């Protein structure tokens, strides 16, 4: 019985489930390290997922769909940035509004575009993103499941983990972003434009979460369905916190939560353990970390407070 659950294909499904989480989680990191709490990841992913599928249906090319999803994510994040940075609205409230907005927008638009009740038409196999097989690794067990046969978005997500680390801790932008998230007054005094840096962080989160959403609709599946993220934006947020707002920590948390999703997938109907117990693992772990039982998750100090420049 255990063999049907724990096998090598579990590694591949871990990677698949971790991909959108990693992208959204890294995105959230750029926003939150800059001091803007981003609970809108769920809504941004939905926007990306829908846009990717809808555009691909229209033009027949998933790469264009992917770019459209990144753009859609950027635009949604722009709403977030305008409201919460420019207009100093409550960041959590804005995030909630965006999440609700994109529960409604995709079904309404797809109803008008495709005369459907919330889903986009099914894409033919050759119009979804391809799976890339890596020649040598393809014959090595374990490595094969982990590294080969995934869509380009997975490789992008993996590559972005070290890149994010580098950007955050080794570049001027990263230093400024962290400064703006910890102590905006000091950063401002030092001549850093708090608003501009925060904008950059939030917009970056939109692009990444938008691509994460696209993964769901044009790589892992071949259509958009109503509310297809099913809380993944929030799991990504949980991973970000579990990983203590650190790119590598967040990535490892995404792998863990991806593994949990893979296990619960394979367990269905095989094991008498209720699937709900596996599904709530990410949330319970995050609560435990927040309560300080395993290490302490300390958010960026200025998170959640709009910055008001002194005149």
């Amino acid at each position, binding site marked *: 019985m255990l063999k049907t659950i724990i096998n090598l294909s579990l590694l591949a499904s871990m990677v698949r489930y971790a991909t959108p989480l990693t992208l959204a989680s890294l995105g959230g990191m750029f926003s939150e390290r800059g001091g803007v709490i981003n609970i809108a990841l769920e809504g941004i992913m939905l926007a990306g997922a829908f846009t990717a599928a809808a555009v691909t249906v229209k033009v027949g090319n998933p790469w264009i769909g992917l770019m459209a999803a990144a753009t859609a994510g950027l635009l949604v994040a722009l709403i977030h940035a305008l409201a919460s940075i420019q207009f100093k*609205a409550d960041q959590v*409230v*804005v995030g909630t509004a965006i999440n609700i907005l994109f529960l409604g927008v995709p079904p309404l638009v797809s109803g008008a575009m495709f005369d459907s009740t919330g889903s986009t038409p099914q894409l033919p196999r050759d119009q979804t993103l391809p799976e890339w097989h890596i020649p040598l690794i393809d014959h090595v067990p374990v490595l094969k499941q982990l590294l080969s046969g995934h869509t380009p978005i997975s490789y992008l997500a993996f590559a972005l983990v070290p890149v994010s680390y580098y950007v955050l801790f080794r570049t001027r932008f990263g230093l400024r972003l962290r400064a703006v998230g910890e102590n905006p007054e000091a950063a401002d005094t030092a001549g850093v434009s708090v608003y501009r840096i925060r904008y950059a962080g939030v917009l970056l989160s939109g692009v990444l979460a938008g691509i994460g959403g696209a993964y769901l609709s044009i790589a892992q599946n071949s259509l958009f369905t109503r509310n297809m993220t099913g809380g993944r934006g929030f799991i990504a947020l949980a991973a970000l916190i579990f990983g203590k707002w650190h790119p590598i920590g967040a990535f490892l948390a995404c792998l863990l939560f991806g593994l949990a999703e893979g296990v619960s997938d394979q367990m269905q109907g095989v094991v008498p353990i209720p699937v*709900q117990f596996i599904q709530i693992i990410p949330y319970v772990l*995050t609560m435990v970390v927040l309560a300080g039982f395993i290490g302490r998750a300390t958010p960026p100090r200025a998170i959640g407070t709009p910055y008001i420049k002194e005149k």
Partner: protein
Amino acid sequence: MKTLVRELLFPLIAVVAAFLVGGIIVWMVGDSPLLVYELFFTSAFGSVDGIGYTLFYATPLIFTGLAVAVAFKCGLLNIGAEGQLIVAAFAAAWVGLVLPGWPALVVTLLAMLAAVVAGGVWSGIPGVLKAKFGAHEVITTIMMNFIAAGLVSYLTQYHYRKQGDPILETLPIAEKINGAVVGPHIPRMSAMLAPFGISFPDRLPLNMAFLLALAACAIVYVFLWKTRWGYELRAVGINASAAEYGGISIARNIVMAMFISGMLAGMVGINDVLGYRYRYYHNFSANYGFTGIAVALLGRNHPAGVLLAAILFGALIRSGLFIDIFTDNVSKDWVVILQAIIILFVACEAVFRGGAKRFIRGTV
């Protein structure tokens, strides 16, 4: 007087602006905005049925709106009302299921108590975590929402479901026999108005929970503005360190505010389980918890405002179905979009304020 005008004016501007943007969306998908506006008013307020349903849908939103408002007055954002009301609704049904044969009235009261306590505890946990460890209540309440959904879905599916029922719902706690409800429940409005000679259609699900919601508005008002406890809670919300300097415990008030907030959210369970469905149905909440944030914001975190805002949102939910049917391309998702736009506009109120100020100064 001036403040009253201001308090009413900005929410009103936000609602009108949202309806205008909503109208543009309708026009963009190829339907008539005027038709949609007309459908909204006639279906929600144009008949006894319309008003009955509007108030029925407003009932849970009054509870969640008050829940968010009370937490907000203490400087906390409870976005976990969704999880709290799920746990509460299940608790109410659970009491009904484990006490068969007990007098219906006793079970009803116990079930109501269970709903309120379950909601309070589910919200109190993030409260304690905030007070003791400084854990951000926004994050913890989000997590608690998912944990609630998982646990309750498990309990329903594995322990309290009728054998072979394809729907995720518990066994019934009361049943309608010859037109009368037998078992623990609270009466429908029709049954409550009949003794006074007022005939109200029995088909409308509006029930005693609506009156509880009105009472909750009054109690929350008195609590927040006329009691010492409410004063301290608000003091922490306005300036926590100043309140502490004045001898008020921040931690105690955070826990209390979250507990009361969850109790109010939990009362949604009374409406749905004891007043409407007579069982726990897993997908009963149409985002009531999150819409409560919009209700509280639009109602400026005041019970009277919450009541008005809840009725507006109840009307939106009611009209969604009609707008879906009687237009070519506009689906009931339009209503969801409108809710989101209202929240965005209310949240960005500073823009309107600034605009109005400039307008008054004559610089626009």
